[in-house]
């Protein structure tokens, strides 16, 4: 039922310089109040790659990514982020290693302005690997946010909220970005513009992306590697190209 083999297939263009494992999870279990949702989880994510995390609704994808940051679930096992075992660390210390998250639902503070939402991340940022994100760079990259910087964040559209949440996570000086269902509730045009384009450009800049998605086609398009969760464990771990071919897995575990 569970497969702990790490993904080994490598992007052809990355073959020259073996990319470092920025996330390495071994024998991880995660759950709530003593009831384990996930057990014996193992996978790795390499620098600059997009890792898709797939599985049916309620299978534990959010539990997994929140668990990496100690953001709610109870976690045991080993979670190495840039070589540091972070199990039991308070969330803010893990984040300061340079790993940012856009939680499911985005976590935008509607009682703050757009700019204050962004400044919160700068306030906390102590990442060792500063990635050079500043307010100016965010406003340059996403003019919409710049125009609405003094507006209450509750006034933003769904796509703008997603942009804000992504920028905010990057402003923690993250070079690893977790996106938990970023396309949820967005119109297809907005998905193409806000999600697809930006994940591609982040990948070009060397940001590692953990992409939790219900939209399988989109995830397999963007991802280099993928893991599939089912029944509390990993049932597929390998390259996204392989998973594209494996219609059996897609049918059985993803309900395609």
């Amino acid at each position: 039922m569970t497969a702990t083999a790490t993904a080994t297939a490598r992007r052809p263009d990355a073959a020259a310089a073996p990319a470092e494992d920025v996330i390495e999870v071994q024998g991880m279990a995660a759950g709530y109040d003593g009831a384990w949702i996930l057990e014996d989880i193992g996978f790795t994510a390499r620098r600059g790659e997009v890792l898709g995390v797939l599985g049916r609704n309620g299978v534990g994808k959010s539990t997994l990514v929140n668990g990496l940051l100690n953001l709610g679930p109870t976690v045991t096992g080993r979670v190495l982020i840039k070589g540091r075992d972070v199990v039991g660390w308070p969330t803010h210390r893990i984040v300061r290693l340079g790993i940012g998250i856009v939680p499911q639902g985005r976590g935008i503070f509607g009682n703050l302005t757009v700019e204050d939402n962004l400044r919160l991340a700068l306030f906390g940022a102590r990442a060792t690997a500063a990635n050079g994100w500043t307010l100016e760079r965010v406003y340059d990259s996403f003019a919409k946010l710049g125009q609405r910087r003094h507006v209450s964040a509750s006034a933003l559209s769904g796509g703008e909220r997603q942009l804000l949440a992504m920028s905010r996570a990057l402003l923690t000086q993250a070079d690893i970005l977790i996106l938990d269902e970023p396309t949820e509730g967005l119109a297809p045009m907005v998905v193409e513009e806000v999600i697809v384009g930006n994940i591609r450009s982040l990948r070009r800049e060397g940001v590692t992306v953990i992409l939790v998605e219900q939209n399988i086609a989109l995830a397999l398009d963007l991802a280099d590697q993928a893991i599939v969760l089912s029944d509390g464990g990993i049932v597929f771990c390998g390259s996204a190209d392989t998973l594209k071919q494996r219609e059996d897995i897609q049918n059985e575990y993803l309900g395609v």
Partner: protein
Amino acid sequence: MEYYVIQSLNALVFAVILLLSGLGLSVVMSLMNFVNLTHGSLYLLGSYIAVFWMATGQPWYLAFPAAFLGGAAAGLILDRFPFQLFYARTHLMQVLLTYGLSVVFADLMRWGFGAHIATPQIPELLRGVVFILDTPFPIYRLFVLASGVVLAAGLWFLFDRTIWGAVVRACVVDTRIVEALGINTKHVFTAVLALSCGLGALSGALGSGILAAFPGLDEEILILAFIVVVVGGLGTFSGVAVSALVLGFTMTFAKMLSPEFSNLMSLAVMAGILIWRPDGLIAATRREV
């Protein structure tokens, strides 16, 4: 006419003291979901600090920062132990802990500062009266009124216009997401508790020249501060301000109309407001994530 103007000024002065002590209580309750019944003790501690400071002959105006720092230091210690152990526990446990502590603090202060009514030696500069519409009014009260307005404006600026305020307002909504932005929310809690205790003591220092300092005042102030917070609506700056004004005016004018029933009358007004608006005058900002 003059009489009403003077009484209104008195009401404003009283409202300022209620506002400052209520704000400290309110921010801790809305941010940390922590019921701190030692808030009245910190008020009284601040009053005693002011009384003793002004008796030493040191520059009088330093009594106020001294009271603030004394209260904030007490807050830092209390946060370390035992408050942190109770932040995540039920309100009943918090009430038991902090009520017990407030009784201990009351005894300590009675032992340390005596059971008599202690009044500060108000400095020359603030002693006399000014004539407002030909009626004398103590300068010290005007000083309290002005300081309170300046402090309240400063606090409003801090919470509404600075990044520290934004961090606190975000924590009120969801501390987990604030943590996920790399911010140590435990430190935020500690800082807010210290600020709250400092404000409690500072309002005590300002109030000492009007209400003096004596055993039992801690409880009276605690109850009034609680009424202000609950009636104003938890977690709203403007709510606390409006309700401090309402309570300040009803108490002052109720005393004027009928001294023996004044407490009953003002409590009835506050209860009436709560029946009319169960969430307080200004309902707290909705959780928005």
